[in-house]
């Protein structure tokens, strides 16, 4: 999106904004281009800016979201570059140094675990695992949710009915129970199996939202106009309606990443998720239960998990604020 021009700009430069807005299908009703607009010229009007620049400036102003974003970059960055940052490998065993409290000697800032592995390194690698799972599930479930929601909302009728009944059914059971069952029967061990299972069960909320938008927008006039002009269904769905769903999609995707990270942690904690030796924040926390006096085993990975989730929530809130300000939002 181009930057909006200032109110002092000559009229013809402002007109191009109007033209652009009408072809973007981003929800802005195109103003009738070509009308002489004396008030605009005299600078007596608040200049209309494109939706995206409003959204961006709103997001940047959201202090919590910015803090969250910075925190996430730091933490996830550490996860991505784990090999470079972690002082030790997560497997390096040192039986002479078992269960040591956090200290600055030998860089054991988080202490060591019950077989002498450096805990800071394990936590960092755990972050990486969480990141892999989170991103994959966020991505995959978003795609599934959008496709199903789009088809359901656009075509309506019996397809919609069936798809929505299926999503309803998924909801009648506690999420954790279903995921545990699936995990127990299908896949434990690697993060990819867990990710796939999570993705397969997590698309329902987004599908509903997308469906809602498609349902309401397919009756709009510009869709009819596009049909009259001969556009195929796919083109209409992608070009005209989908851009309007980007706001909720982005918000939902970010929150899904957070939820996936937590769910993976819970699954691993209970023993049905990622198995050792791959470190997962969940299984790290679980190992702390045997050593209640060695508090660092439980506290550090949990703290990291908490911070990640809070940061994602802040960013998600900021995104929701920026992209959909009319929606009721629960914010600080």
């Amino acid at each position, binding site marked *: 999106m181009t930057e909006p021009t200032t109110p002092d700009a000559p009229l013809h430069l402002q007109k191009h904004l109007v033209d652009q807005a009408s072809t973007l299908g981003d929800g802005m009703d195109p103003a009738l281009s070509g009308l*002489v*607009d*004396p*008030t*605009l010229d*005299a*600078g*007596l*009007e*608040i200049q209309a800016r494109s939706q995206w620049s409003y959204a961006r400036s709103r997001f940047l102003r959201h202090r919590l979201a910015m803090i969250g974003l910075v925190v996430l970059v730091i933490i996830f960055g550490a996860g991505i570059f784990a090999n470079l940052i972690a002082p030790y490998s997560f497997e390096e065993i040192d039986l002479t140094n078992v269960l040591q409290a956090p200290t600055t000697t030998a860089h054991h800032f988080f202490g060591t675990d019950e077989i002498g592995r450096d805990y800071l390194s394990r936590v960092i690698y755990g972050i990486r695992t969480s990141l892999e799972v989170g991103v994959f599930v966020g991505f995959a479930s978003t795609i599934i949710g959008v496709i199903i929601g789009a088809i359901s909302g656009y075509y309506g009728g019996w397809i919609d009915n069936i798809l929505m009944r299926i999503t309803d059914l998924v909801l009648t059971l506690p999420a954790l129970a279903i995921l545990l069952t699936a995990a127990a029967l299908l896949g434990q061990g690697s993060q990819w199996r867990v990710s796939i299972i999570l993705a397969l069960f997590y698309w329902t909320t987004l599908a509903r939202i997308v469906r809602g938008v498609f349902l309401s927008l397919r009756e709009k006039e510009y869709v009819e106009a596009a049909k009259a002009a001969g556009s195929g269904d796919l083109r209409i769905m992608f070009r005209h309606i989908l851009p309007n769903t980007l706001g909720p999609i982005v918000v939902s995707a970010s929150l899904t990443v957070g939820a996936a990270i937590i769910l993976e942690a819970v699954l691993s904690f209970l023993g049905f998720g990622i198995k050792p030796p791959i470190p997962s924040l969940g299984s790290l926390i679980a190992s702390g239960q045997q050593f209640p006096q060695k508090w660092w085993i439980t506290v550090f990975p949990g703290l990291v998990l908490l911070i990640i989730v809070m940061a994602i929530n802040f960013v998600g809130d900021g995104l929701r604020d920026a992209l959909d300000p009319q929606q009721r939002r629960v914010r600080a």
Partner: protein
Amino acid sequence: MPEPLLSIRNLVVEFRTEDGIVHAVDDISYDVFPGETLGIVGESGSGKSVSTMSILGLIPQPPGRVASGTAIFKGKDLIKMKKRELRRFRGDELAMVFQDPMTSLNPVLKVGYQLGEAIKTHYPKVSDDDVEKRVIDLLRMVGVPNPEQRYTQYPHEFSGGMRQRAMIAMSIANSPSLLIADEPTTALDVTIQAQVLEVLKTVQAETQAATILITHDLGIVAELCDRVLVMYGGKIVEHGDVHTIFQNPRHPYTIGLMDSLPKLTEDEDWLRPIPGQPPSLINRPPGCAFHPRCFLSQGRLRCREEVPALRTADGGTDHASACHFAEELIGRHSKFAEPVPAGGGA
């Protein structure tokens, strides 16, 4: 000249928004006399609703505030009053009817209860039976059929027109001296509009209350009002009695409003809207707020630099216009310069 019932002087109301301070009402003054119907006309954003809501204390205070001004009602200044005292006037001596009847009633409480609440709040000693009787009478007065049954129903069982009647009934429950009706028919179908206007007339006749009728519909003004205020950009640009305003308007905006109405007794090829957009209320450029859209101004310097003051015009002592060049409009008749049906009981 009788004493004015309500006397507003130099009222300024501001709102703090993330884009700046909005000057919704910018130094307006007017009077309302007992028993009369005063129409306030203007576009959305002209400040007409805000001005009345602010004197009743209904503007949410964090973003909004009354920056200055007085509003003397029966000898007391509503603006300076403490909230508790103002509350005693609200719903009793001063009542208000709002625009959207579909959302103005609490959906989970019965209609009869909500109307009764208006009475009970100010007169708690009245027995429940008497309250019920009075409410049923009120419903009958405003033309709600089967009032005894309707008393026990919920708002969603009422149609839009009926809800607005109920709202009107609620507002006159305590026989107010001043009734403020904020676009009471805007949200209704045209046929229902006519009915509700009839109800308003009935109610005025019954209670002898003075009425401030806020609207953007000139047809309603012609039918109900004795005097008219025209507002633009938070200021009053013209006021006078209804005949004068319709037949000899002396402000380009008023003339524009009249001109933009189709006249049903003549053939017209094109409608003539006022060109341009309403002004931003945040960053006010100097000069007259209307000049960019004004046919009379023609870019004259004085219009661009100096805010015009309200000056007496040629339609009588009550007629005033805020235009530097109002004199140039003398002798000009609007297309409605024929006998206009008299307003409600002047």
